[in-house]
């Protein structure tokens, strides 16, 4: 596992762009929406969280629950 943050991009011949962040933990990844729109000169028409975000969110929730019980 690496801690570095990366963006995987595909710029299609039809002009459409798909992007995925990797190594970005939790809600911070939402900051990438505006950053990538600025970088690419475009507008987001669809977005979804992937398993890494959900895993991180679950870990955060688990930690918070542990703290409450202790």
């Amino acid at each position, binding site marked *: 596992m690496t801690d570095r943050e990366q*963006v995987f991009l595909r710029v299609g011949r039809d002009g459409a762009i798909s992007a995925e962040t990797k190594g970005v933990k939790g809600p911070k990844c939402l900051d990438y929406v505006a950053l990538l729109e600025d970088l690419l*000169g475009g507008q987001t028409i669809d*977005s979804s*969280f992937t398993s890494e975000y959900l895993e991180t969110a679950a870990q955060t929730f688990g930690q918070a629950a542990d703290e409450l019980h202790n």
Partner: protein
Amino acid sequence: MSLSLIIIPIALAAVSVVAAARAETGESNCSSVVVGTRMRNEQLLCQSLAQLGATVSRTVDSIAANWPQGQAKFRKDSQGIWSAHFSGSFDYERAASLIVEIDTAYAALVQQEVLSRLRERAPSLGMSIESENVEEDLSVTLVLNVQVGDAA
């Protein structure tokens, strides 16, 4: 992975390549075929028309493209999207087919513009290009490294 996005460049409207066509009759009673497009950028539209062999002329609010078989006059709507008004020997099928050809040339120019912008702006946004590859379908895939603390 944490977030997945689909982004459309501002030069493209998020509509189909060929929007609904309609027949129009002008004051002179000559009918023409009107085909909507997803193109927004005037300069890229002119370049793509020239690539398809048109003689292109611009006025303040329109672009005229002339071929031996007829003319397409492009006008911008209130949302900044160009539509093509065909006259001459163009029927709907030929007009729609030509718009697909223009859109293909236009989209390739948009792709190059996006890549140029990306290469130019990435460093100032704290990003560097780790790899860049042209795929079989001519899409370009890139991996960007983000300097944590500088970006996002």
